[in-house]
């Protein structure tokens, strides 16, 4: 079983899958880092974005990668609006209210999708979905390679925004010291909404990268978010680098355990790891102290 013919492709596949996980986790960790809330609606938003990408292809004939160009700003605005006009006002600044509101939102979005599109599992077929790139003994699916590159690029852009732009600095300021940021003239409600928008935009990109090789149904996003929560805890709450490394690592563990334990048991590895990390490093690999 340990022959390199199997091991190398399994490792590469794992990294490619992990990249998508990382992107979903990135949105989650960003929102947690700044708003200090766990966004339970993340999975539902991912399903919604996948439906958007699906219909962009099915109805308008748009390639998912092209769809990403306009879905990303659209979902940014959607996320911004959600936080600014719904979650923020409804939560009245109380953490437990944030949790309940996003949980409620998840239920509403999922059931709206279920009502509109039923429980059917839908897929799209792209001419290049099964083309491969040969790397040594491994054949890598083109959409996965594209996804991997895109995720690394998005992470770099996001990191640059946080590091060098005024908005990024404001986000970091709010994350560190909300009251201080408010006193120095930063519009906290606006920054909250921008952060939520960025998190939602990450989800839109992830959806467009996923749809060529994955299926969509009203609960398709949940599988990813459960894993993304694991990654956020593993990488450290609020850490961008943590989300990326955590995502890649989880993808790797999942791929290898699928090969060695079987498809049905593949996810066991992830959750065993999750428990171990919680026991040994409760703040995650890259997390600051609580």
């Amino acid at each position, binding site marked *: 079983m340990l022959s390199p013919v199997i091991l190398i492709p399994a490792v590469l596949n794992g990294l490619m899958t992990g990249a998508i996980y990382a992107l979903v986790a990135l949105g989650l960790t960003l929102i947690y880092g700044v708003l200090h809330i766990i966004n339970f609606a993340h999975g539902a938003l991912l399903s919604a974005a996948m439906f958007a990408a699906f219909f962009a292809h099915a109805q308008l004939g748009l390639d998912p990668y092209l769809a990403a160009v306009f879905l990303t700003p659209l979902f940014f605005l959607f996320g911004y609006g959600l936080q600014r006009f719904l979650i923020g006002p409804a939560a009245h600044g109380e953490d437990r209210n944030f949790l309940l509101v996003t949980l409620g939102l998840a239920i509403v979005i999922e059931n709206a999708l279920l*009502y509109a599109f039923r429980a059917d599992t839908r*897929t799209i077929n792209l001419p290049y979905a099964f083309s491969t790139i040969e790397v040594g003994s491994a054949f890598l699916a083109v959409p996965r390679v594209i996804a991997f590159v895109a995720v690394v690029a998005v992470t770099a852009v996001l990191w640059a925004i946080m590091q060098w732009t005024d908005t990024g600095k404001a986000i970091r300021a709010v994350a560190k010291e909300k009251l201080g940021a408010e006193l120095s003239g930063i519009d906290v409600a606006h920054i909250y909404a921008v952060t939520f928008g960025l998190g939602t935009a990450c989800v839109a990109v992830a959806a467009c990268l996923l749809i060529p090789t994955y299926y969509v149904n009203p609960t398709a996003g949940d599988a990813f978010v459960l894993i993304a929560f694991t990654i956020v805890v593993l990488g450290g709450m609020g850490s961008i680098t943590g989300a990326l490394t955590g995502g890649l690592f989880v993808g790797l563990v999942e791929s290898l355990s*699928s090969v060695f334990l079987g*498809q049905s048991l593949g996810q066991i590895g992830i959750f065993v790891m999750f428990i171990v990390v919680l026991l040994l490093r409760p703040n995650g690999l890259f997390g600051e102290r609580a």
Partner: protein
Amino acid sequence: MARRSSTISRRRFLRTTALGTTAAAGLLHAPAVLRAQAPTVKIGVLHPVSGALSYSGQQGRLGATMAIDEINTSGGIKALGGAKIDPMLGDAQSTPDGGNAEVEKMNAAPVCAVVGGYASAICLSATQTAARYDLPYVVDVGVVDSIVTRGLKNTFRFGPGFGVIAKTALENLVAINDQAGKPAKTVVIVHEDSAFGAGLAKLLNAQLPDKGFQVLDTIPHPTPTREFESIVLKIKAANPDLVIPANYYNEYVLLARTMLQQHVRPRAIYSVLGGAASSYKFVKEFPEAAQYIMDCNHWFNPKNPKALALKKQVEDKGQFYTYEVYMNYSVVLLLADAIERAASTDRAKIIDAIASSTFSGHVMPYGPTKFANGQNQGAAPVNTQVQGNDIQVILPETFASAKPVFPMPA
């Protein structure tokens, strides 16, 4: 709940309206039939038309409704004064629970019999629910043998079960392999992990070694699975002569395409009840991945003119002539024949009439219809192979339209 019942009532409304229109058109053309208003015979038509199995479910529903339309336009159930069949369409939502809920509703409607189910897991639970109300239930596809071995008096299966299919599949595999000089010795089985796939894998694991094959690995996966790369890597590691998949349509297509993508080329892909292996849809959409795949599965009788006429009708509708279509078509005709002979909508009388059926107006390559403990003893699968852009019957020889190509040309 509100969502589901409202959707169903809309569909049923459309359905009833469509039937009404058809019936009205029929009456206009044949005023002689216009006597007192004929009563209707309500039957339940249950399929998983949403969820993971929705494609198969919709195909099944198509076959059933085509048969019902045909019966209704040719005068309905004559023994009941030309009563039209009124189908109550149910959606099992690809789960056993969904199937149960629909059977409860059908019983309350009330219907006089139920056909369908499609997936083994759905059939197992739906027949049991129907049995509580002595409601006759004719299974369309569900192949797990325990569907008919639990002693349920209401449950009938027109098609073949696992036992017969696995036995035929193995005999034919041995025959094909022997004919080619025994190039295949090792096997990997890939199966979906519910009642159908797991049951079949168990049977194959027990019987393959006796036939001189070595099972290198048995790989289960859930339905739906969208990622077959790890599985294909395992196949690659085992490097078998034969790959035997037993799963539903979506997963089968993905497995075949991923194998092609990862350059895994065994000597043959020989499936037993492969969800896509003998589907025109698969052959048309992915001819390269489908090429030379062999399958032991349900198939229509290619020498029956009625089967070919139905094929044309289905294709004229822009649909694929898949096994769900002709099996459901045949099952509805079988039930209608039983109601005709029972001359009643009484459930017990219909059960007796099905049990004594010798129906021959179907489109399947079966022997004489004879039910023993609910199982049709004449039912049998055939072996098919994708050759070029068509699917050919390669065994048994009475129905064969081509010779097997084995091993696959590299």
